[in-house]
């Protein structure tokens, strides 16, 4: 390891508003060397983002109950420093790239002025914008942020951080909010920063990304660094039990799809039983067309219609799972909403079998539950009164929840529990089709694996048709029998899962596949 630009010793932080405080960091120590990329890996709530904030001295003042230890950046102590020193540290030494670039640029200031504020001369700004791969830097300097796409904004953020030539760059999950194809480009960009002599602390929840990018990996769990070692070694031979569990729960395009994903506490796993594909179509979409008023405004304020779905044909048999894969804006959610009956198609037909309309499992599980109603009441809504309670209890057990939770409010449940409750609510109505709208995209790996297993199990047992909408080809391959790829409102590819993943026909599918981070243990060795 080279001379460290940052060394953290025994960092302890208690955070909390008002009365209660929680220990978020419990004695963290590590160092980052110049020109080194260190990945900080952990699940949500592990304290990894807090470490990033603490390094910048940006922990919200009114929430800090206790802060001790030492953070030295290029020789300057951050903990306990006065605001002046902290500002100086932020200006010269530490810069950050945010998780979501959409809100991180001031919408009422041109990019140029925001870069200038960062201490960049105009030439410098142009150079860096060009270096991040942005075309026509001059135009971008004069533009307002809303003119730029998410990927472009993230490049601007990186340029903005790098013009200051900081000693340390903190990148806090800089790619999670971006489309997969853009993600890969940004990762490449970050990797190229190594040559600047800047140390990079790369915060992520994805071991795959960490493995592909970092020199070293730190695994963070419950406010502690449980593992610190060279990337290859951590991936190949993790020492901490937690790291091993993380690795095991992780899935990618090469994961065994014949059996449930291994999750914590399960030793031996039997393969999925074969499922009988039904003869009848559970859901049929025929030449579905949909427009949205999203274009420029006309004279009287009406927006021009834009075609978001352009003649989609899709069929799902009973007991079959079809994954609909595409990036944001491809129209995949619209298609799901049409299938669910939440929207009507402008043209084309939708036919569903059975009397019960398709049920939906949403991406935002907490948001999909009415905050002021108990779980049970929501699950059992509309059921006959006499059998309601037993049905609710049964449905809760089915999805792995304690029936006593029926009386709890959604805010008293974890995200995973909420998603299970949502699944229970969908199942209790005994639909023939279950529609899943990115049900795992906001989840940590171990949780995602659990939910994926649950959904797979349920559709197999109940013989449900399932439409699984996702942007994640790895997840799609695991759960679905067939994969349909949607690009700009058109189906560009459709076929059996394994086939689509191994030998894609459409160029777009190839692009998507290339962007999926892999844990190639061999390559690292």
């Amino acid at each position: 390891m080279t001379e460290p630009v940052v060394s953290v010793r025994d960092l302890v932080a208690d955070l909390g508003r008002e009365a209660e405080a929680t220990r978020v960091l419990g004695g963290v120590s590590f160092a980052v060397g110049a020109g080194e990329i260190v990945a900080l890996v952990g699940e949500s709530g592990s304290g990894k983002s807090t470490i990033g904030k603490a390094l910048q001295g940006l922990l919200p003042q009114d929430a800090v109950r206790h802060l001790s230890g030492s953070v030295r950046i290029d020789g300057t102590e951050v903990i306990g420093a006065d605001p002046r020193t902290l500002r100086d540290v932020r200006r010269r030494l530490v810069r950050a790239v945010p998780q979501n670039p959409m809100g991180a640029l001031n919408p009422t200031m041109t990019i140029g002025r925001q870069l200038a504020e960062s201490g960049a001369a105009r030439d410098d700004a142009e150079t860096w914008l060009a270096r991040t791969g942005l075309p026509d830097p001059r135009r971008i300097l004069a533009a307002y942020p809303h003119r730029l796409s998410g990927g472009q904004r993230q490049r601007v953020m990186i340029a903005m951080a790098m013009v200051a030539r900081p000693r340390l760059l903190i990148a806090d999950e800089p790619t999670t909010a971006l489309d997969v194809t853009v993600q890969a480009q940004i990762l490449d960009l970050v990797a190229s920063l190594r040559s600047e002599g800047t140390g990079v602390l790369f915060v992520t929840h994805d071991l795959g990304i960490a493995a592909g990018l970092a020199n070293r990996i730190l695994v963070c769990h419950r406010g502690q660094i449980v593992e610190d070692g060279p990337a290859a070694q951590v991936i190949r031979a993790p020492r901490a039990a937690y790291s091993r569990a993380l690795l095991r729960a992780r899935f990618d395009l090469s994961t065994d799809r014949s059996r449930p994903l291994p999750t914590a506490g399960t030793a031996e796993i039997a393969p999925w039983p074969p499922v009988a594909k039904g003869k009848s179509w559970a859901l049929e979409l025929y030449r579905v067309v949909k427009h949205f008023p999203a274009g420029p405004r006309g004279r009287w304020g009406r927006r021009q219609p834009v075609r978001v779905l352009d003649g989609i044909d899709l069929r799902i048999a009973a007991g079959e799972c079809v994954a609909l894969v595409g990036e944001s804006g491809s129209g995949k959610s619209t298609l799901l909403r049409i299938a669910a009956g939440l929207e009507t198609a402008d043209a084309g037909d939708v036919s569903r079998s059975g009397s019960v309309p398709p049920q939906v499992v949403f991406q935002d599980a907490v948001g999909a539950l009415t905050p002021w109603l108990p779980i049970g009441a929501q699950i059992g809504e509309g059921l006959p009164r006499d059998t309601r309670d037993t049905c609710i209890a049964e449905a809760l057990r089915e999805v792995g929840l304690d029936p006593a939770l029926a009386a709890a409010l959604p805010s008293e449940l974890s995200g995973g529990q909420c998603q299970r409750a949502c699944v229970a609510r969908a199942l209790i109505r005994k639909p023939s089709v279950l529609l899943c709208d990115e049900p795992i995209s906001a989840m940590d790996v171990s949780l995602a694996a659990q939910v994926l297993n649950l959904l797979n199990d349920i559709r197999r047992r109940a013989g449900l048709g399932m439409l699984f909408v996702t942007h994640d080809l790895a997840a799609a391959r695991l759960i679905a029998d067939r994969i349909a790829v949607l690009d700009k409102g058109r189906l560009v590819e459709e076929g059996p899962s394994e086939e689509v993943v191994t030998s894609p026909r459409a160029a777009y599918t190839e692009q998507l596949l290339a962007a999926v981070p892999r844990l190639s243990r061999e390559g690292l060795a």
Partner: protein
Amino acid sequence: MTVARPDPETIPARTPGRLRRLAARMGWLETVALVSLGVITLLALIAPWITPFDPYLRVAPAHLPPGWPHLFGTDDLGRDLFSRVLLGVTYTWLPGLCIILVALVVGTALGLAAGTMGGTADLVIMRLVELFLVLPSTLIALAVVAALGPGLVNTMIAITIFWWPWYTRIVRDEVCRLRVRPHVEAARIGGSRGTALVLRHIAPGVVPALLVTATLDVANVIMTLSLMSFLGLGQPAPAPELGAMTARGIDSLTVFWWLPILPAVAIMVMCLMANLAGDGLRRAVRGA
């Protein structure tokens, strides 16, 4: 069944004292203010029975300065000012609450209708609301009272006419925001329809925003009421309406300062409490 179904997760320990947490989020000052709103309402309800002196009759020489037993002194006619201010709370606070309640009921009903029915109903109601909102309301309320004749009821009518559109707009905006929220869609997919959907899954979500606005509005309504009665359009004598009392005593500011100041202080305290409580609620609701 070989699938590794996770162990049933159990109920997390319920955090004790939701009220205490609410209070903690509001801040102690705001919590005191919120409690005091209840106290003021109680006081307003029982004031007619607890005034130490008859507020309508001469009980002492005129213009006694504050002291004992006449805490706030006496007025031009030798009536006990403390008793009159106490009763004035009734005549000022309860009409204010009434206006807000009526406006809330009307506004919420129309807002729910506009937000959930959409289409023509939404268009018609919201155009109407916009019209009312862009009219210079105080001015027209003044004209309405001038036309109907002064008096508490007329004043209340005039103010209410211009107050409900605020709530309609808030409710409608909230409904539109909530309507596209996943939980409403989920409920719809789950088979919930019509009134049941609105009342179970949408309406309760509107309450926080409404509550905050309504609490803050108490102060606005009281100020408007007192303005009206200053212009001679409120409740006429001998009812001790606080605004009217301040107005009538204003000429005595330099001679008998307690005549205008003490009723005004009562108005101030009420407004201040409502404002603080509203701020606190807003903070608690938005999690600031």
